């Protein structure tokens, strides 16, 4: 029996089609994997299902009812629960207060029936086989406990269908095992799951069936048992899987940067040597220390021990400013939080870093800056009407190019890029890749942290794979494949299993 049928769903945002006649059929009591690259339309499809967006055309039937145009509250009532990647919990409230938020049990006089709520929490936690104290403050919970709490909330809402959006990104292997146990338990009780993930081994472990989307189009659906990771991957990535498009080997310069037994918060004993003009990819699962490593080199986080040599000189970093003087630039992850100065114009955003280096000349020469802006705009292909518009008026990809320009203006030689294509659409991503390779060709040294292996395949000369803070493998360009990287990044998949997938 099908619990959910989404038929011929189409959706466009400001004229740009995001979904084109997508079908999704989920059977009652199964775990259904929804697969696709970033930007394939998975979240839009789920947002339509949960009532965040309304489809331009198509039909959604859930549990025999047409819910095509229902609101968020209505879809919740019908029994659809979305466990978001970013958890929607109140850190300053207790566990049971979170679960019962806005659904509190009260006496007729309006007094909270705390004991009853706590009992009910305990019952559900017993059912899930977890031991969380309902009186604990949520901020003290671990990432996996918070995840469990979200699922518990869904159970209290008597959800029939749970959407898990990349639920394992913040979890350790052990915690993932535990989460899957819970999923299996609830599945046995008849709950249906839509499971969104990029991690193939997990998908094969937990799912019964799958649907693949690519560029907003329905590609394929079927039983997990009838397919392989290889097949699914090629359906997911399609023609963009080819790597030879833009990458070509270049002569590299001498060693520019070397790390010897460098340790810091979240990473240990890093040994690396980077040559001038090289694009070095670093990757690993969430929490493997790649981002922390870059932040430490830039001076945002302290380096505890070890020796860093840049350009033949020992480099002791104590501040961001010191790193910048040594011609190091850092494009942080989370653009909105760490890069965007929302109340300032494109031009001002582009020059804020350069200004800190040239503060011996305190007065701004706008003509000069406008001239250079023209050059950068051309070089980086920034699509902006005028430099005086607010930076937030640009699309994500163009904003990111502005921040590339911000650092190029400091005349940095070493570019540390932390997830540079996060939240950028596919077309703009390709432009960023080209840009990175162009910069490398011009002699800049680039270190890119990315969790998207296809990305590294397209641009990296070498790739260092991190596992819980250490480099476990250094791959040459030709060795970078999703399977090899995953194998080392998880450090748990043994070679045989990797071959099988």
């Amino acid at each position, binding site marked *: 029996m099908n619990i959910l049928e989404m038929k011929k769903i189409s959706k466009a945002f400001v004229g740009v089609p995001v979904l084109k006649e997508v079908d999704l059929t989920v059977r009652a009591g199964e775990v259904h994997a929804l697969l696709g690259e970033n930007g394939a339309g998975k979240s839009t499809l789920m947002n339509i299902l949960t009532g965040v967006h309304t489809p331009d055309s198509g039909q959604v039937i859930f549990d025999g009812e047409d819910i095509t145009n229902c609101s968020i509250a209505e879809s919740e009532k019908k029994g659809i629960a979305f466990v978001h990647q970013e958890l929607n919990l109140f850190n300053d409230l207790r566990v049971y207060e979170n679960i019962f938020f806005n659904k509190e049990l009260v006496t007729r006089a309006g007094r909270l029936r705390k004991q009853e709520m706590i009992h009910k929490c305990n019952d559900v936690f017993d059912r899930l086989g977890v031991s969380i104290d309902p009186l604990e403050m949520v901020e003290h919970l671990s990432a996996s406990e918070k995840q469990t709490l979200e699922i518990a909330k869904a159970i209290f809402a008597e959800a029939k269908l749970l959407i898990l959006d990349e639920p394992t990104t913040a979890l350790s292997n052990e915690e993932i095992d535990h989460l899957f146990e819970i999923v299996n338990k609830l599945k046995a009780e008849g709950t249906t799951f839509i499971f969104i993930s990029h991690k193939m081994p997990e998908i094969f472990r937990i799912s019964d069936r799958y649907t693949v989307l690519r560029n907003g189009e329905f590609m394929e659906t079927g039983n997990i048992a009838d397919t392989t990771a290889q097949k699914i991957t090629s359906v997911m990535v399609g023609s963009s899987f080819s790597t030879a498009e833009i990458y070509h080997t270049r002569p590299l310069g001498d060693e520019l940067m070397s790390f010897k037994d460098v340790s810091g918060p979240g990473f240990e004993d890093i040994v690396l040597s980077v040559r001038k003009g090289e694009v070095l990819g670093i990757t690993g699962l969430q929490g493997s220390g790649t981002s922390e490593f870059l932040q430490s080199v830039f001076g945002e986080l302290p380096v505890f021990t070890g020796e860093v040599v840049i350009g033949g000189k020992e480099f002791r970093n104590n501040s961001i400013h010191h790193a910048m003087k040594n011609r190091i630039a850092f494009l942080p992850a989370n653009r909105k939080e760490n890069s*965007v100065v929302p109340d300032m114009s494109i031009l001002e955003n582009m020059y804020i870093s350069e200004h*800190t280096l040239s503060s011996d000349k305190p007065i701004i020469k706008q003509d000069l800056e406008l001239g250079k802006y023209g050059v950068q705009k051309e070089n980086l292909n920034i699509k902006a009407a005028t430099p005086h518009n*607010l930076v937030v008026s640009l699309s994500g990809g163009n904003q990111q190019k502005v921040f590339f320009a911000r650092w190029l203006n400091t005349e940095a030689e070493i570019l540390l890029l932390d997830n540079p294509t996060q939240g950028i659409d596919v077309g703009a991503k390709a432009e960023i890749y080209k840009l990175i390779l162009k910069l490398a060709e011009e002699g800049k040294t680039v270190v890119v942290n990315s969790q998207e292996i296809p990305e590294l395949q397209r641009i990296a000369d070498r790739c260092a794979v991190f596992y819980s803070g250490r480099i476990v493998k250094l791959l040459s360009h030709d060795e970078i494949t999703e399977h090899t990287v995953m194998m080392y990044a998880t450090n748990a998949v043994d070679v045989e299993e990797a071959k099988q997938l």
Partner: protein
Amino acid sequence: MSGEKIKAKRGGFSIGQYSYVLIFAALFLVYFITSKGQLRWTGVTNILRHTAVVGMLSLGMGLAIIIGEIDLSVGAIMCCDACAGCVLFNALCAAGCPVWLIFLLIVLFCLIFGTLLGFFNGILIGKLGLPAFIVTLASQLIYRSVSQYCSRALPAYVTGDPSNNYKMVQGAARDVMYKFGNGKVFTLPVCGLIFIVLAIVLIYVSTNTKYGKRLFAIGSNSKAAHMAGVNVEWTKVSVFALTGLLCGIGSVMWLCMQSNVDPATTGVNNEMFAIAAVVLGGISMSGGKGKLIGVIFGALSYTVIDKIIAALNVDSLINNSIKGAILLVAIIIQVIGPRLRNSKVKKQKA
């Protein structure tokens, strides 16, 4: 596309952006009418004179609010600095210093002492990361109470007054300073001119220097500013020190204009008027947005309200109700105005 329209707006002229000029013009018109033709040029220049001290505090407050903080101690710094300056003045007079030296030393002392008082706030807020609201609330209490305590604890020959006041002792030095404080250049009051000149300097700094841009960047997104290499901690310290310096200049003006300080009343509530002037001037309380030029008009508007009350001969105790009401009108124009415009744009889109 409607998106482009919004973009075009920013470069062009929009009334909401300059509401402070309109408010000032409207108030001035009311003042002109209520004075029933009695308004002379001196009456107009007096607005400038009476704005000077609060204006200095407002400029400091403006800087603090631009970086997303606040300084509740501006009035107390001004008062404490003026008291200390008065004590030094009396001591120097008693020591028989030449007039020019006394004047010079008082000015230097007040500027440095004000900067130090602000710097103390700055270290706690910028370096230690304490909330500005609490830190400056505490320092406000401290600075004022010290001023009051010393008025009794210090010998009368330095306070210049046996009661709880500070008075500059009669003599040539006092006369020179008084003449300066109440002097005029081309019929314009000196203190008012100093305020306008310093405001113009600060406007230039805030719009045309790298330091100025940094302040807006910190107020807009301090994490991003930090990641872009801005030394957020020390920039914050510098802003509070600068605010202290501006209060110090205000205290010199006060001494020169009044020749005495009452630690119980001088500068009381001035931080509130300064905040109001800043908000009236169109600077966003959340930081990062606005123009310092608005502060000039904001501060002037508040003086005009005082004048209107005086001209109407109504009970001066109603004064603050009117100020409060005008503040509400100003904030409604600033907050509701863009919202109305946006909803119009949205409707056009649909």
